[in-house]
């Protein structure tokens, strides 16, 4: 039972971050009909910019960064992330959308993704970097861990889950209640109409791209101190977030969040749980959920996926 609790807590924490990335992917798709293949790496850029400003490229420990500097680093990181996200739209997606060239935006977003990845790797080439933790979780329980019977889990995973939920709620509020958000909704449903009505389409869409990156980065940075980060951290978040988004056909925010959470839970379950003799083991925890998503996509494709034959 405690095992299950452990799996649920750690799976949810990871899964809610995936979910936020999935929300970003959904938003981008519904606004532009494209897949933002660079979203993961933009988030990675945010993570490592924060790390760079907070601690440089040298060895860092979780406590070696003052809170003030960390907050500055966080602000810079998120800002860079939003700028990269918006810039990605303006340079790598929008010109090709105008021209109707699918290959164009695919190539553009992929190129952006790999360029960012390579840039991160050139500064941070090792396979794992410690991320500073500004919040003194270690003061809670036993150095940040809470025991529930035999099992124990990090308090910060609950914190991460909470932050992710708050971010999701904020995004939903922003989309439904603010003027820009409603503008975005208008663009999603009828782009031409929105233009006619006077909605600043390009500006809003760029903003949306930027925010998709920014919100994802915030969530990822919140989760980062739990484990060493590498240049691949962001990329993998993007891939898993896309899988979750595809699962719910790029649906509404809460659905994408739920899909991400489910994905994370499945991953945690496969990595940890053994039912008697059957033990899948951690190696499969990345492959199997993705395979299932692709299988589902093949067997029950969403209607949006099909070509417009009329």
């Amino acid at each position, binding site marked *: 039972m405690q095992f299950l609790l452990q799996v649920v807590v750690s799976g949810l924490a990871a899964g809610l971050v995936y979910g936020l990335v999935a929300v970003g992917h959904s938003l981008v798709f519904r606004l532009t009909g494209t897949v933002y293949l660079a979203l993961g790496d933009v988030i990675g850029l945010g993570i490592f910019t924060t790390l760079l400003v907070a601690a440089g490229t040298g060895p860092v420990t979780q406590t070696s960064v003052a809170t003030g500097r960390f907050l500055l680093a966080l602000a810079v990181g998120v800002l860079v992330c939003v700028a990269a996200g918006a810039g990605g739209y303006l340079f790598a997606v929008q010109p090709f959308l105008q021209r109707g060239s699918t290959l164009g935006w695919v190539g553009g977003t992929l190129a952006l993704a790999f360029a960012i990845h390579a840039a991160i790797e050139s500064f941070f080439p090792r396979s794992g970097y410690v991320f500073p933790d500004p919040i003194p979780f270690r003061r809670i329980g036993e150095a940040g861990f809470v025991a529930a019977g035999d099992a124990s889990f990090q308090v910060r995973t609950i914190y991460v889950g909470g932050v992710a939920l708050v971010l999701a709620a904020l995004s939903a509020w922003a989309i439904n209640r603010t003027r820009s958000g409603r503008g975005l909704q208008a663009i999603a449903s009828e782009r031409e109409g929105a233009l006619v009505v006077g909605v600043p389409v390009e500006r809003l869409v760029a903003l949306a791209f930027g925010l998709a990156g920014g919100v994802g980065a915030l969530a990822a940075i919140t989760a980062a101190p739990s484990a060493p980060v590498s240049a691949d951290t962001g990329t993998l978040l993007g891939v898993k977030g896309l899988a979750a988004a595809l699962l719910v056909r790029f649906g509404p925010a809460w659905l994408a969040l739920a899909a991400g959470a489910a994905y994370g839970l499945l991953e945690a379950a496969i990595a940890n749980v053994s039912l008697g003799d059957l033990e899948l083991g951690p190696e499969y925890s990345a492959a199997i959920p993705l395979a299932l998503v692709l299988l589902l996509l093949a067997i029950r494709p969403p209607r949006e996926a099909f*070509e417009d034959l009329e």
Partner: protein
Amino acid sequence: MSALPAFTRTGAAVREAGRDARLAWGPGAWLALAAFALAALAPFVLPSSVRLDGLAQTAYLALAAVGLGFAVGIGGMPSVAQGAFVGVGAVAAGHLIGSGVPPLLAALVGALTAGCGGVLVGAAVVRFRPVFVVAATWLATWLFAFTLEALPSLTGGARGLTVAPGKIARLEPTATLHYELALGLVAVALLAYRALAGSSFGVRLRAAGQRPAAAVALGVEAPRLRLAAFAGAAAVGGLAGGLAVQLDGVVDPEAYDAFLSFTLLVAVLIGGAATALGPVVGVLAVAALSLAADVLARLTGAESARFGPMLAALLVLSVLATGSEGIVPAVARRIRRAGRQERDHGMELRRPDAATLTAGGLHKRFGELVAVRDVALDLRSSSVTALIGPNGSGKTTVLRLLAGTLPPDEGSVEFDGRPLTAASAGDRVELGLVRTLQSNAVFPALTALENALVGASLRRRYGGALRALLATPKARAEARETTARAQAALAAVGLQERADIVAQELTGSEQRLLMIASALATRPRILLLDEPSAGASGAELQRLAAILERLSAEGLAVLAVEHNLRLVRTVADEIVVLHAGTMLASGTPEQVAGDPAVRAAYLGRQSL
């Protein structure tokens, strides 16, 4: 004894093939041969400091890129999974060689395995819109990477699976041999690309990629064609992987990751997607970038393993930002000649057989809105029926019901007495029921002749990719006949002089005529036209009227949804008036003109 006639037939076929080849040989072919010879001699003249294994790897990359180029440029599927297929071929071949299978055979089996993988993935994605193809293949690439991580037995763990080099066709597997082998395969792949792209297989694929709806309306079975293209591209990638891994000497799981898929796609993009040479030029450009990155790295003292991707990605971004469609098309446009070849206008379109289309009691609702209510129609050969009515009266819906693309809520549509309900679009076109679309749904990047070829290829029996590739005598004969039929279709609408013009460069009304020509090329018995006169001026309207009259005189049953009453009056044998989904009147033009209800509801200032 009985072998003699077969022998002479084969001999005649071979001579004929030789004649065709000599006719097709031109300055372009000489240039290609010279380039090939130069490339083949390169290892023997270049200084020894040039890394031959690097050249060979580049050549294998080019092979995989050509395969991808076909799927992307001709098949219209932006696949980001080619790197994974290269990996499948490499892993399969690596294991087989480890078990003692001869190297060439192992590579071929690797290609086959990759092809099967292509079928598996392709089966899912061929019906998808391009954006979903991208998403699905991107995830598939990562799934491959995760699977390699999960099953270290496949790749020998992080150490990598060693592939002991074996003799290829009794020759020592040096870097030079691999280079020549790769070069030869690239040449074969380029020839195959050209052969397929121009064949009816390729034309239909390109049409489906440009205007899926229109292609389906002409009976093109896009999913099946695309699957063949996708699986073929995967197999070619697998072949490249299976051979390149022998040069590498080790199966390295990291070599077949998303970055390889990206590199291949970028090569296709930079070089130009819909051309055969494009991927090769793209790979050369990428190789040049890597070299530049190496030099830069050495100059600045940074780690070369990191610089390459960054440089390549940045340069690609700039290439894309400048908006070029690729190096090869841009160059080709500079040196394009307006080559008009002699056309044989001899063939006339055959008279269609008689057919009837009867519809009764048609009802169709969209949610709350009743679009069509109790509509009945009777189409007969050698007649032109016009369907008129104000905007929103349900004309297009009726057309879709008649064409069978929309199932009626009530009522039936019968073709020659048989209900149409279960037939797919392709089946209906084969039966002889064809419909044109309302918008300008020509295939913009195809020439007028190729547009017509899309329709003409419907009835090919020997039109498959394999036969096109091998250029069997039957395939070639059928191709000639199909081309003649396409030319005749163009002639029937008066576009025979414009056969080699790319469709998007035709005028609007020419494009509409082209749509009719494509439909005619399928040998229809019943033709459903959606607003053929839209945007046409006086002279063009006369031309259109003459065409419609001639078509009906030749036995076709034509139904035209129309706004232009003058045309309708000139051409139509029967008019059906629709208003708010119901039939207001039907009959000869005189009868309809005299109907008071019609006058009241519809005519207003216009008069028949």
